């Protein structure tokens, strides 16, 4: 019998689609992480339970789950509704509740009454004699969420039905109280064709809600900001500028994650600067972030003085227009080429790919593409480009 703290567990981290590889890089830095794999929208890895609390410090992930069961059910897609649902329900007794509960308790910092031993015992009893436990005042509250990936029509049951059946047996076996809105434990059932994966949520509020309290019309999640900043390969002591910072999401995330570098953010709109002040005040321990009112095409810096520029360009939807972008983007690139050092990085996000590509073509010898990512932002397919300044001196 392996003592809990010596276990290793499987974690699933949901990440912004398009930035999986970047998140995988950040995850790989944690010392006991192994078997890092990514697919659309998430990164999976194994980690020693005792070092698992480190995962809460990850800045590039949105949500974290411990994976405690996976199975391929032969022909799940062909089974009639009743049989399929019963099959799904029957998997409960095979799930690794010990890993789930131990991980949950360590990471959330709160115990589930009785701990993992009690629940392992209960599930064995439930499996052998089906005796149901009653809910009482100290029962934890839980809910089950079911996500089905791919075509929904291939199963003869709905996600809600699967969640409901699965939840019913959890309630029977453990006496946990079912509660859709106010819950301590969330079990996530992920079904893709014939494959069932069972996970338990490890964070409460989505991790991307950090940093920002004053939201503007186009505020970017901190996890997206972090991934863009990672692309800039920031070193200690470097200066990173966001010339169109809005409420300051990018410079603020930068100054939290790269404490020995400096982040300058600026915008031409007074309302944006008000939000910057508010967001900076909400993060009072930040010492390396400065804001300015400026024109992004007329930056108050000497030539070749800035190490990186990381910014969210106006898409031409909520702010500005595509016609404006055709004129604006080349002016921006010209100015940014001036202030960046040779070899400096430019990381930009935009939905207006055409304006960006055309602007780069106009000055193709000055910019080298390092990488590109198609990122889903609020339903829009956006392009994130990482460029190296290769201007001649």
């Amino acid at each position, binding site marked *: 019998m392996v003592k809990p703290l010596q276990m290793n567990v499987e974690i699933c981290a949901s990440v912004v689609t398009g930035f999986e590889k970047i998140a995988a890089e950040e995850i790989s830095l944690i010392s006991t992480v192994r078997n890092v794999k990514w697919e659309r929208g998430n990164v999976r890895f194994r980690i020693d339970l005792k070092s698992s609390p480190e995962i809460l410090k990850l800045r590039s992930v949105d949500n974290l789950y411990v994976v405690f069961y996976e199975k391929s059910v032969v022909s799940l897609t062909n089974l009639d509704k009743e049989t399929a649902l019963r099959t799904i329900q029957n998997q409960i007794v095979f799930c690794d509740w010990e890993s789930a509960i131990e991980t949950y308790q360590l990471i959330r910092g709160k115990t589930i009454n009785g701990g993992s031993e009690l629940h392992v015992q209960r599930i064995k009893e439930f499996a052998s004699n089906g005796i149901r436990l009653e809910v009482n005042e100290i029962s934890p509250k839980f809910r089950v969420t079911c996500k089905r990936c791919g075509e929904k029509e291939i199963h003869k049951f709905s996600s809600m039905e699967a969640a409901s059946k699965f939840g019913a047996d959890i309630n029977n076996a453990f006496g946990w109280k079912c509660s859709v809105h106010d819950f301590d434990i969330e079990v996530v059932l992920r079904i893709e064709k014939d494959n069932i994966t069972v996970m338990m949520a490890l964070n409460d509020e989505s991790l991307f809600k950090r940093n920002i309290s004053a939201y503007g019309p186009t505020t970017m999640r901190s996890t997206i900001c972090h991934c863009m900043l990672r692309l800039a390969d920031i070193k200690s002591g470097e*200066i990173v500028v966001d010339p169109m910072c809005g409420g300051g999401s990018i410079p603020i995330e930068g100054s939290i994650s790269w404490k020995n570098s400096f982040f300058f953010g600026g915008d031409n709109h007074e309302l944006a600067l008000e939000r910057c002040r508010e967001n900076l005040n909400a993060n009072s321990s930040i*010492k390396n972030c*400065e804001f300015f009112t400026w024109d992004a095409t007329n930056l108050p810096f000497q030539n070749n003085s800035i190490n990186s520029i990381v910014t969210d360009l106006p898409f031409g939807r909520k702010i500005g227009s595509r016609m404006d972008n055709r004129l604006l983007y080349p002016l921006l690139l010209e100015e940014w080429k001036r202030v960046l050092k040779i070899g400096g990085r430019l990381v930009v996000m935009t939905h207006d790919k055409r304006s960006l590509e055309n602007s780069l073509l106009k000055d193709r010898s000055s910019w080298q593409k390092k990488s590109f990512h198609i990122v889903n932002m609020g339903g829009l397919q956006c392009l994130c480009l990482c460029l190296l300044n290769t201007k001649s001196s």
Partner: protein
Amino acid sequence: MKLFVHNFMSSRFLKNVTVGYPLELTVKQFVEKDIEFDRENTIVMLDKIQYEALLVAAAAINQSDRIPAEKPSKWDELSDDQLRQFHHLLMNIDVIDGELVCPETKTVFPIKDGIPNMLKVDAEK
């Protein structure tokens, strides 16, 4: 606006300005913070800055006596106490109200509530 920021600022983006550096600095109100001193980080910063501009900044708050009139040849040869003087100027001084002025055109850019306004449109001559 921390004082080290002044070291990186230029009015080169203005028409008819060739260099635009260093900017003249008037400080009307500032606060002194107590940011933790780190020898390594201070040296990394000092390697980046231009000394003549640092002297301008120190003079703006009447604390020129903290630092030598001539740039030390090797930063890592200075003692912790000497480096702390530089750290204090660069990192602990936060300008709340003041003005940055282009040395060539005398265009004035205000600093209000710690934020410099570098818009050509808003600036005064």
